[in-house]
């Protein structure tokens, strides 16, 4: 039987391409999971999920594309499969870039560790009033004295 004569409508749906597209989109959606403010260990896994899910999507798309090109008489998707794969590839590159960018935080070997003393410092507060670490432990207006200070270093508001 000459497979080349099979009409386009009778060729098989290239499901790997559809699943590849779906998983790539799902991978993009995982970027929004940060808004749910996940707690550990999920929060620590999330960057890896962001990276691996679009990777799986791309892998499926490549499989689908290989089928479309090697067996064009059996499977559909030569043209739109190529387009989707290029889009998925670009998305994956973007995800890798984001992954590298957000994990470029330098180590802090010289920072005070648990059990070590946090030495005294003085910095201006938001009213430009010089404030020292020991002053942060001073009693407030209602007379209560903090037993601990939570120092939150952050990247800045810009």
């Amino acid at each position, binding site marked *: 039987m000459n497979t080349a004569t099979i009409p386009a409508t009778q060729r098989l749906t290239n499901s790997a391409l559809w699943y590849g597209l779906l998983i790539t989109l799902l991978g993009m959606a995982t970027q929004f999971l*940060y808004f749910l*403010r996940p*707690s*550990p260990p999920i*929060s*620590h896994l*999330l*960057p890896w999920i962001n990276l691996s899910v679009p990777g799986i999507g791309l892998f499926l798309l490549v499989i689908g594309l290989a089928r479309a090109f090697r067996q064009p008489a059996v499977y559909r998707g030569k043209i739109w499969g190529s387009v989707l794969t290029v889009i998925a590839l670009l998305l994956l590159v973007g995800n890798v870039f984001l992954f590298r960018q*957000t*994990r*470029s*935080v*330098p*180590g*802090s*070997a*010289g*920072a*005070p*560790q*648990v*059990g*070590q*003393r*946090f*030495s*005294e*410092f003085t*910095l*201006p*507060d*938001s*009213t*430009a009033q010089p*404030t020292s*670490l020991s002053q*942060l*432990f001073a009693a407030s207006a209602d007379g*209560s*004295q*903090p*037993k*601990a*200070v*939570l*120092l*939150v*270093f*952050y*990247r*800045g*508001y*810009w």
Partner: protein
Amino acid sequence: MRGIQEQLKEFQALGVRPVAISVDPPEVSANLRRKAGYNFTFLSDPNLDVIRRYDLLHAAAGPDGHDISRPAEFLVDRSGVVRWANFTEDIRVRPRAQEMLAVARNIR
């Protein structure tokens, strides 16, 4: 920081005073406090003196390539000893207020 503000009463009830520190000058911090409705203390380290001393510098990571602080959190008790510290590897991953409250409960 939004999480800390949301749980501010709980922190205060446990005797914990949250303090935010960044390179932002006082007027920028004042603006942020007003806009975001944060009513805990913000300190400014525009010259990176303290940030550098504690090895928290993230060089050239600011929007126009200036030096900023990396995200880091320390729970310091009255004697100045660090009781808990967190150094994230990913700027999108931060400790939850609940996690910090749990540690604070163990400090007398």
